[in-house]
């Protein structure tokens, strides 16, 4: 059963002090899945993603990566993270490096590739996101949409098995949202396994094949987009959708 699963989240809980943010979360990610995680602000979506990348340590539960529990395993967090890419809401490009260096540093220092191979690989992904003309620019010289596209290329350049996105378009001006979503849609079409926290309901509905709705730290509703969006059974999901339709 484990063979065709990349990630399994089992009974995952997370508390900050006495504040329980995630409660008994269960879901799986298969290769090629594009999973959208939606839900109200504060429902624990970012925390869930950060737990999956071990940027937060879960309070209890298991996260299985190809069947191996990476929470219980001591050490090796860095090696695991190199296989799970992450794209942040605030881009977080390395400010001291050029666009190209941002995309090669991980390959050279973490994956120990030689510089030429790393550059070649980086150029391939920078081309995919349409940022090749800017390889010599520093992050401060780029627009938000460009930064996010570089951040995606940086994550891709590590050849990850799964890519996590935490609201990749929320910090962008409306006219730049499209360019980033286009790149993400391309990746989805090419079969990249993605886990996307998003407020872009159109993306969740049209691009992903699996939708997880979170409410107050639990999964309120989960399933195929048609089912979740057209026939939601959870009253909170109904309410959540109604608010979106009004906007």
């Amino acid at each position, binding site marked *: 059963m484990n063979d065709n699963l990349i990630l399994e989240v089992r009974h995952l809980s997370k508390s900050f002090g006495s504040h329980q943010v995630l409660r008994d979360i269960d879901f799986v990610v298969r290769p090629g899945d594009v999973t959208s995680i939606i839900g109200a602000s504060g429902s624990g979506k970012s925390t869930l993603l950060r737990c999956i990348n071990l940027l937060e340590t879960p309070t209890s539960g298991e996260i299985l990566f190809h069947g191996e529990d990476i929470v219980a395993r001591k050490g090796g967090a860095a090696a695991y993270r190199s296989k799970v890419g992450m794209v*942040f809401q605030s881009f977080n490009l390395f400010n001291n490096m050029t666009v190209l260096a941002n995309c090669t*540093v991980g390959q050279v220092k973490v994956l120990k590739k030689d510089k030429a191979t790393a550059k070649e690989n980086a150029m391939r992904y920078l081309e995919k996101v*349409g940022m090749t*003309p800017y390889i010599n620019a520093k992050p401060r010289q780029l627009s938000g949409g460009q930064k996010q596209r570089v951040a995606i290329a940086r994550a891709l350049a590590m050849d990850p098995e799964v890519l996590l996105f935490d609201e990749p378009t929320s910090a962008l001006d409306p006219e730049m949202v499209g360019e980033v979503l286009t790149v993400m849609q391309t990746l989805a079409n090419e079969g990249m396994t993605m886990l996307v926290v998003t407020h872009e309901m159109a993306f969740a509905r049209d691009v992903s094949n699996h939708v997880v709705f979170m409410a107050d730290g639990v999964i309120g509703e989960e399933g195929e987009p048609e089912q979740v969006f057209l026939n939601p059974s959870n009253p909170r999901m109904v309410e959540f959708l109604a608010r979106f339709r009004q906007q």
Partner: protein
Amino acid sequence: MLQTFFQQCAQLGIDITSTWARYGGQYLTGMYNTITLAILATLIGCIIGFICGILNTIPCGPGDNIVKRVVLRIIRVVIRIYVEVFRGTPMILQAVFIYYGLPYFTGSVRWPSVFIAALVIVSINTGAYMAESVRGGFLSIDPGQTESAKAIGMTHVQTMLYVIIPQALRVLLPQIGNNLIINIKDTSVMFIISYGELFSVHRAAVGATYLYFPSAAIEMTAYFSMTLIASLILRWLEKRMDGSDNYELVNEDQLVGAAGTYTHPVKGSPYDEHSKEAQKFQQQRQWAENRKNSEASDVGNRSLDQRGER
């Protein structure tokens, strides 16, 4: 009244000339000794400061094992004591304390040279100040930088080396410059352990000539030119570290033959918008260039002014 002033000025010229004639070589040696000590001590002090800063920021949570937590706790307390003691006592006394303290306790073991003793004391002092600055420098860097470094699989050491320290170094450069300038001046207390720096030459010269003011005038000029040159070099270094304000847009025809050939089934090529963006950036580059040129002429004017004053 005015006449006496001019007479005194003329007299000063004569006195300076005669002092310089006798002690010129020693003033120059003093300058050399001062600047060597100041530069080396600043460098070593910065390294000490960075080491303390790194030790102070090793992440350690309740999840870590007890040994690591205890060791880190002890390290932090030791650094705290070091910083407080050396920031909180006069350097001139520390010099006496350490220079005479070593043979007092060991009897036969002495400092190999006054220079080494002076270097140790000034470095340790600089380190104490830098430790706090470095901690602040690390804290000033967006935690997002650390997170994204971790997210691509970097270890703590790699994150520090390739992401945090280079950025902290830039933030701290003005502070490092301050320390260098302070050290150029404050190494003057090292005469107390007979290190032959610039101020000790003054003491030797006036002991023989009693020409206090002329010698002081020479010393003032010498110290001021050293600190001025130091601060000009540091400004230049800051500019250099910032890199150029503009960058070359790489012509994708040359470097990547295939770029732009990819077309998205729905949205078309991401290069559809590229030409528009490229234009925008050409424009921004132009602005940046103009701004840089006007800044450059500003700097030019300023240094002309300074030369005029002297």
